């Protein structure tokens, strides 16, 4: 008989050549670099509404819904409606993807031995500390993203924790965030920012963790006091302890004094429009920038590829170019700049976008023209000196004549050739698609915010006045109102305003206004409709509620 039983079961053995095994991963420095990048990769969300910057800006009182007649979802979010089921599901699932990846690093790194890769045991330990500290920070970052949009969420802090538990309370969630940040601060080395190599730019460090602890403290205490009616001035820790205002102020002081971060000398040099004349080699592309001698500080830290060096920006969501051929290929480009760009107007240097988030004209009208941040933040359409002389109105909804200037498409003519995105020309990128060309990082945290938070927590004016001085404004005495005003002007359109309104308890009154707008050529009234029952929280993804078999409860008012 010719039966072919010669080879046994090993015939069926296969070797996975295109992936690494879960069992042996997290054991070399290279593994760690890749795995940490995997954690950060979860910041990106395929659904644009789950993008933190997009969601927070649409919700704020200084930006309207906008877009075209078909952009219903922008108007729904802006107006606190949600006929859809899963507007924030990507925010949910990507955050937990990031948390799971961070949990794996925290657990596996503790067991790993990296000593053979380093000259000394200390260096190996320092490497390990940075990895664990960064993973702790990122876990806190994701839980903070979840809790501020959706409220308390299930806490999963180890690989094998059960995944089907109910939502923890808001306080329990914050306690975990605070503990992770505190441990991250204590674990990561105190290397000043100017000494951190450019190759590490984009990684979180001790200073970033300190700054976030300030933000978390302010948000938690404000939210509990003003939204939940449970007045508190301490931030709980998971082990039962807590952090007081002075504890947190101490971290911020350490950051202010020892991080090596500084304010950029001219506020406007933080934003890419300050580079467009230089990139184009033509001072008339944006005449206003030339008159004001603007020069961009760049976005790769203290020694950027382009720009003069940026010591202010502390933590960003890094963006590059997209490609439709990649899986979710448009998430790697800054869609805030695309979506909030001017609709159906492709001007130089301000290119076309989808016209979301037109600016509330009350902000423009109330803002002192002497403050250079006004024109540095808002694009006045029709103004030729601003490169917006060729603007044609009536292309979209909620038109007010103003768009934001911090995150917007920037383009200019290439050596007598076609008009192309500035970043495309800087990086010599092959794909000129106007939807994929926004390689501008989104700033989560910059040093000015640390100064403002320090003022707010300590009730002192120093930090605030440093920020004012940079804008060429006179010092003022500390008051909460003055601080609120300063935060509005300094941090406009940076995704912070909505959360400030909520924690200050100002969200109830912030939307009591009616504006005259144009909806695709039709005069209309705009009046957002905030509902107090939602307590500043967004709808929980319905599909997750269903998949949990009702273990998750929907947020009130949704």
């Amino acid at each position: 008989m010719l039966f072919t039983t010669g080879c046994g079961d090993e015939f069926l053995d296969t070797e996975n050549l295109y992936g690494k095994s879960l069992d042996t991963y997290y054991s070399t420095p290279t593994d760690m670099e890749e795995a940490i990048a995997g954690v950060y990769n979860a910041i990106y969300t395929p659904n644009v509404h789950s993008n933190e910057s997009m969601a927070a800006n649409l919700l704020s009182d200084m930006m309207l819904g906008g877009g075209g007649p078909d952009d219903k979802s922008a108007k729904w979010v802006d107006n606190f409606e949600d006929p859809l089921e899963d507007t924030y599901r990507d925010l949910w699932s990507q955050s937990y993807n990031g948390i799971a990846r961070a949990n794996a690093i925290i657990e596996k790194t503790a067991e790993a031995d990296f000593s053979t890769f380093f000259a000394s045991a200390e260096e190996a330990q320092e490497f390990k500390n940075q990895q664990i500290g960064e993973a702790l920070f990122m876990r806190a970052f994701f839980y903070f993203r979840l809790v501020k949009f959706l409220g308390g969420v299930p806490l999963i802090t180890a690989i094998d924790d059960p995944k089907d538990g109910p939502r923890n309370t808001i306080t329990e969630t914050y306690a975990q965030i605070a503990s992770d940040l505190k441990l991250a601060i204590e674990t990561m080395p105190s290397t000043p920012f100017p000494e951190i190599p450019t190759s590490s730019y984009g990684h979180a460090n001790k200073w970033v963790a300190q700054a976030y602890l300030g933000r978390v403290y302010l948000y938690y205490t404000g939210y509990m006091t003003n939204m939940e009616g449970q007045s508190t001035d301490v931030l709980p820790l998971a082990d039962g302890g807590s952090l007081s205002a002075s504890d947190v102020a101490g971290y911020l002081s350490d950051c202010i004094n020892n991080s090596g971060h500084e304010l950029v000398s001219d506020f406007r040099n933080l934003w890419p429009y300050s580079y467009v004349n230089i990139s184009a080699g033509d001072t008339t592309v944006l005449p206003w920038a030339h008159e004001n001698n603007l020069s961009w500080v760049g976005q790769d830290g203290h020694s950027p590829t382009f720009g003069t060096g940026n010591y202010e920006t502390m933590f960003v969501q890094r963006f590059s170019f997209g490609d439709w051929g990649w899986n979710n290929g448009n998430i790697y480009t800054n869609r805030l700049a695309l979506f909030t760009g001017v609709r159906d107007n492709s001007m130089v240097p301000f290119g076309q976008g989808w016209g979301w988030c037109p600016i509330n004209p009350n902000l423009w009208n109330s803002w002192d023209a002497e403050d250079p941040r006004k024109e540095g933040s808002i694009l006045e359409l029709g103004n030729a000196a601003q490169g917006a002389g060729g603007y044609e109105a009536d292309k979209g909804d909620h038109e007010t004549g103003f768009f934001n200037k911090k995150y917007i498409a920037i383009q200019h003519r290439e050596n007598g050739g076609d008009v192309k995105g500035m970043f495309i020309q800087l990086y010599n990128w092959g794909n000129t698609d106007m939807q994929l060309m926004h390689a501008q990082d989104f700033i989560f945290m910059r040093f000015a915010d640390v100064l403002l938070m320090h003022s707010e927590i300590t009730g002192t004016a120093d930090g605030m006045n440093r920020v004012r001085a940079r804008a060429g404004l006179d010092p003022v005495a500390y008051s909460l109102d003055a601080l609120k005003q300063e935060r509005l002007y300094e941090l406009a359109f940076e995704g912070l305003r909505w959360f400030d309104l909520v924690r200050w308890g100002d969200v109830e009154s912030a939307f009591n206004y009616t504006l005259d707008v144009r909806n695709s050529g039709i005069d209309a009234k705009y009046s957002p409709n905030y509902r107090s029952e939602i307590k500043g929280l967004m709808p929980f993804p319905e599909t997750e509620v269903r998949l949990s078999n009702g273990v998750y409860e929907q947020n009130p008012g949704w």
Partner: protein
Amino acid sequence: MLILSTVFSLGLFAQEVTLSGVVTSADDNQPLPGVTVVVKGTTNGTVTNFDGVYTLKVSGDAVLLFSFVGMKPQEIPVDGRTQVDVVLESDAFDVDEVVVVGYGVQKKALTTGANINVKGEEIAALNTSTAMEALQGTTPGVSITRNNGQPGAGTKVTIRGLGTIGDSDPLYIVDGVAVGNIDYLNSSDIESIDVLKDAASAAIYGSRAANGVVLVTTKKGSKNKKPMVTYDGYYGIQNIYKNLDPLNAQEYMYIMDEGRVNDGLAPNNWEAILKNNAWLNNNFPGELGTQLGEDIWGMLQNGWEGTNWIDEITKQDASMQSHAVNITGGSDDVIYSAGISYLDQTGIIGGDIIDAGYKRLTARLNTEFVLYKNDEHDIITIGENFTYTNTENRSVGTGNIYWNDLHDALVQNPLMPAYWQPSIDNNINEYGFTPTLDGLSTGQTNPIARMYYRHNYNYGKGNKVTGNAYIKVEPIKDLVVRSSFGVDAWFGYGRSMNPTYSLGLLYNDDVDGASQNQYFGNNWTWTTTAAYGRLFGDHKVDVLVGTELLKNQINMEVGGSRNNLLFPGDPKYAYINNTQSPESISEINTWGADWAAGGGGLMSYIARAQYNFKERYMFSATVRADGSSNFAEGNRWGTFPSFAAGWVITEEDFMDDISILDFAKLRASWGQNGNQSIPNFIYSSQIAYVFPGYFFGDTKPVSGTTAYPERVTNPDVTWEKSEQLNIGVDARLLDSRLAVTFDWYKKTTKGWLLEAPILGTFGAAAPYINGGDIENTGVEMVFGWNDKVGDFKYNVSFSAAYNKNEVTSIANTDGVIQGPSHVLSQGTAAVSRVEVGMPIGFFYGYETDGLLQNQDEVDAYVTPEGNPYFSDQRPGDVRFVDQNLDGVIDEDDKIMLGDPNPDWEIGIQLGAEFKNFYANATFTGKFGMQVMQSYRSFADNFDQNYTTGIFDRWHGEGTSDRLPRLSSSSNRNTNFVSDIYMHDADYLRVSNLTFGYNFGHLLSNIDAISNVRLYTSVSNLYTFTGYDGMDPEVAFGHDASWASGIDLGLYPQARTVMFGLSVEF
């Protein structure tokens, strides 16, 4: 009826005489070689030679049995004659006919499963470009739907209902070798196709047979037959059978304006819109934008009706031709069959613009040699079957709304001319494509340009080599050991040029480049079986045991691309070497992998036993054990048993009186099969690399290497099993003129492999689980009638199949698998879903109850509390049904709207022959299914064109109860996915009609040519349907393989008029 001519001679009965004679066929009066002539009751016999002549020593009172496959056997007494010439008639119901079963053949009368056998000539007679298309409507229980009408588009084949949302293709076995599909074969290469529908028949293929098995046998030679050469060819002319009618320019402007007026806006100022072209004015000198607007406005003033883009992309009288030459023959020890064929089918869409079409060259050689034999039987035989195919397929986009050239043509406004001379004169575009009408919308793009640039610079060819070499050893009589080594190999290459163009703000590309790729793969199968069959008195026993190994040997692809051509604009030079040295990393892209390098395969043990008593009672049992590398150790092996029984009632004595019934067999079978088509390694979650990843440092625009755990691990994942019970009857009545087959089945898929959605808190993608059950229940029937009246012969066959599909469990709390969104229009919810208690892929959305006709109806459309459902509701709005009466129209009100899977599929075949004329007709039909139709992206692109169907819209009381009032923007009337998009798609199609003439009788004196046949035929002649789209047969399901029935502008099947010629030499 026997036609017997005898020549009497004197002689004595009971005395040995040397008898001789010629056996001929009644069909063509040609001699029949290979006919078995045996003296009844003895083993004394012979076979006829090349010339149909036999010689035999017999006693004068002997009775001779003449038998030949496919012919009615005859018993003839010698009556002392020395010459007996016999004419054999073909027999539609040949009792000795054998059919192919797994790893062998079996007498058709003894099969106990639900199988279908289709002869190659029946397939070839329909002149379809692929064989599976010819089975449409002739094989009940086998649902065959063309993916679309594009040449080379292939078919979607489902046997007895969808049993999975994963890979639901049947297993295709050609001459014992598993292949992905059989589109590479020319119909003229096929001897027969056998479809194994029930689990017991398919169980011998175990792990891969859950979706049924299609066994293909290619043409073989036969012993002692002189070489026969045949030529079959046809030439056809294809045209669109039924066109859609987009609005012309005047209608378009009228309808667009009506939408605006309904919204309280002023009608468009079309002149201003056309002349406002900032993009063209800004990007090219000479105020060309204004000129384009003026040119169009001027033409409109002179009665120009605008561009009909469908006409622009359609090719009239597109050709289709096929030529095939086949040679078969054999001597005592060698048989051979060789064929070469060529098919060239031009596309009716894009045939002019991008030379769209499908070309296929196939060459085949099958041989078998007897190396060693004794008087009784062949002892060692070797053979091979190999087919080589070369294909070239240039296709247009036929996918979702982002990749569908027909959809692009349907939605494009008619105001844009297709071509504009100043476009050439001013170096805007060398082909004269008209650039954007910027004032209308920045989003619209000339669909001809889009089709041209998207597809025209792709050049690719694919090759396939499939076949096996085998050795058969019969050491003792009736014990046959066979070992076969088969390969399924594919290789090919492609190259393309990325051109530059600039035709609008959102349609430009100023970087060119070239890309090349090549691929190569092979799977081999080594099968060894031993079979023994013997008659013990009235007991016949057949057993077969065997092993099989299938190895994924290689599956590699390498390729790359670089930007900046050295010879811009000339595709002839579009090779990677002909590009400039790259300045930036983004100008280069490369890839390469061998997906089989890590190993992988199947290992199987097979056993089958068959028994019959006097061919009256039949039993069979099969078991196959399969190990698959797709599962973790410990879960690899699956065992698939089956049992079947048959009872030929007409063999029983008590049936002798029932003369109306010539043959009746009751069959019952039960069996299990598996499915293992999931990706490898899903049991062992791995670290996946993502691209791009995250951007640390100053390395932009290139990301750092980024990795994370890919999915939640499920080491327990194992075989999906399908279990099927089948009960059937085969009967022949009324002198075998009427044949009836009936089957009932229940197929249950258990442990269905799927990625069920999981909670986000798991932090990784969902694992594959054995997580659901699906039940398919159905009946199938065939009625055939075959008779003749004088010289007029005719046959009628009717087949029908009913199937009910139901998902009975999904192992997650949701119980739902949602289909993709943005299907009917960007910005709309999912249309298809899978849910417990429903058929797979059913349509899901809001039920409507007509339109609000007037203010009274608006006022009456209120919630149970008496409030209006919508604050802005008005006449002409859709009345959505509040299913749960909770006062709001929301997700909870969505219900099952329809089902894209037909309830009934039928086929009718009519054949008639009068003297040398013949005619055949084939009808196919599907009933009880629905189609979701949308020809524009209504939720986000309001300037897109409509078809004239929009004239049936509501525009005043009583004007429509289905299509709501028009709007110029986004509106819930249209944006809520509802049954206003759903249409019944029942149809009955005259899929083929053929008239022909046989010249054989005129050629009897010409030795070189034995027969010539000329015919003309029409395929897709007419479709009876109420469906208003181009074609009611809609396989497209957007991006979910389990979904179907979504018509976004479906490439229609052509109506083809063909002229054919067959010659036998």
